[in-house]
């Protein structure tokens, strides 16, 4: 049947003249939407006869949706939803969190290296430089950067401590004898 063969031609006789344009526009919109129906849909509907549906009562899409909703064909989801599985998952998460916390509290390798540093590990070249600086005037220092000065200050303090520890007391009789 052609779309132009409207079976709703019972337009009210008392339709106000100022409403007729809107009635026409709506009819036009309806015509456009009917015309937008894709032919493939018509082909599919032709094949879905009452006889065919009677022999295949549930289209595949409907059966699949029903099966999914029941969960009957998805054993993994059933296992996930069980209380035992959820309890095991919670315990596992807690154990992992505790292990991560303990690991994060361990001293880092960088800290261990810095803590063991003392004057006995001074670079010989640096030590010579410190000696040289100790003999020189302060006006010779400006060529060094701020970082160099910080490092030298640290190492000089360590060197002084080391010398203090091994400083020979020439007033000691035992030292005098050894010399």
């Amino acid at each position: 049947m052609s779309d132009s063969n409207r079976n709703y031609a019972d337009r009210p006789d008392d339709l106000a003249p100022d409403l007729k344009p809107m009635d026409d526009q709506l009819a036009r919109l309806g015509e456009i939407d009917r015309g937008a129906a894709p032919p493939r849909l018509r082909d599919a509907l032709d094949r879905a006869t009452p006889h065919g549906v009677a022999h295949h009562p549930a289209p595949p899409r409907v059966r699949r949706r029903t099966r999914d909703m029941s969960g009957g064909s998805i054993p993994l989801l059933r296992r996930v939803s069980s209380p035992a599985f959820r309890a095991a998952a919670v315990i596992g998460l807690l154990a992992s969190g505790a292990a991560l916390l303990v690991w994060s509290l361990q001293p880092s390798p960088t800290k261990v290296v810095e803590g063991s540093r003392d004057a006995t590990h001074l670079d010989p070249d640096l030590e010579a430089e410190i000696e040289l600086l100790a003999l020189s005037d302060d006006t010779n220092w400006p060529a060094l950067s701020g970082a160099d000065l910080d490092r030298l200050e640290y190492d000089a303090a360590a060197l002084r401590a080391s010398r203090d520890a091994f400083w020979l007391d020439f007033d000691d009789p035992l030292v005098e004898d050894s010399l």
Partner: protein
Amino acid sequence: MTEPHRHGADPDVAALVRAASGGDESAWRTLVDRYWRRIFALARSRGMGTELAEEITQSVFATLAAKLGAGQYEEQGLFEPWLFRIAMNRVRDAARTRRPAPLQMPDGALERRPDAADCPNFDAEDLLALREAIGRLDETDRDVIALRHHAQLPFNAIAESLGQPLGTVLARHHRALAKLRDMMSSPSPSAAPNTADKAAGS
């Protein structure tokens, strides 16, 4: 529920339904030919995209085929109201659960117009604005408009399908036309002629 208004029933439809129920595939194809576009357009009237409108149409015809095949429909001259009641229920269900598609016009829609003399000053922008205006109607008024102009039902079949008196349906239709006329003459800010905004709305 109103008394049945059977004076608009089509005797050809009754014969087709009987034949299709008895396994006549030619009768079934004639029924499909008569109603498939109208049911599709009914879904489109509520902002459904093409794919969803197709899905709804298939669902309605699957139900029709199942009921006819199982002998669950008794012909009483009310086939169209019954069929479109099924269709309207499917459309409402989909409208509640699905996000409507952007408002748009099918490609080449305006070129297919055979009766251009009916509304000469009507372009694509007007049609989009009209869709937007229909979306702002009350649901009952919108149903009357959709069943009337997209599904092409006579008023007595609309009354039967919606379970309302014929006078109520006529009054609702008249009121809906007046509302749409007013909305189109003074569109709301959301109905400004901006296609992008309209596409993102409703």
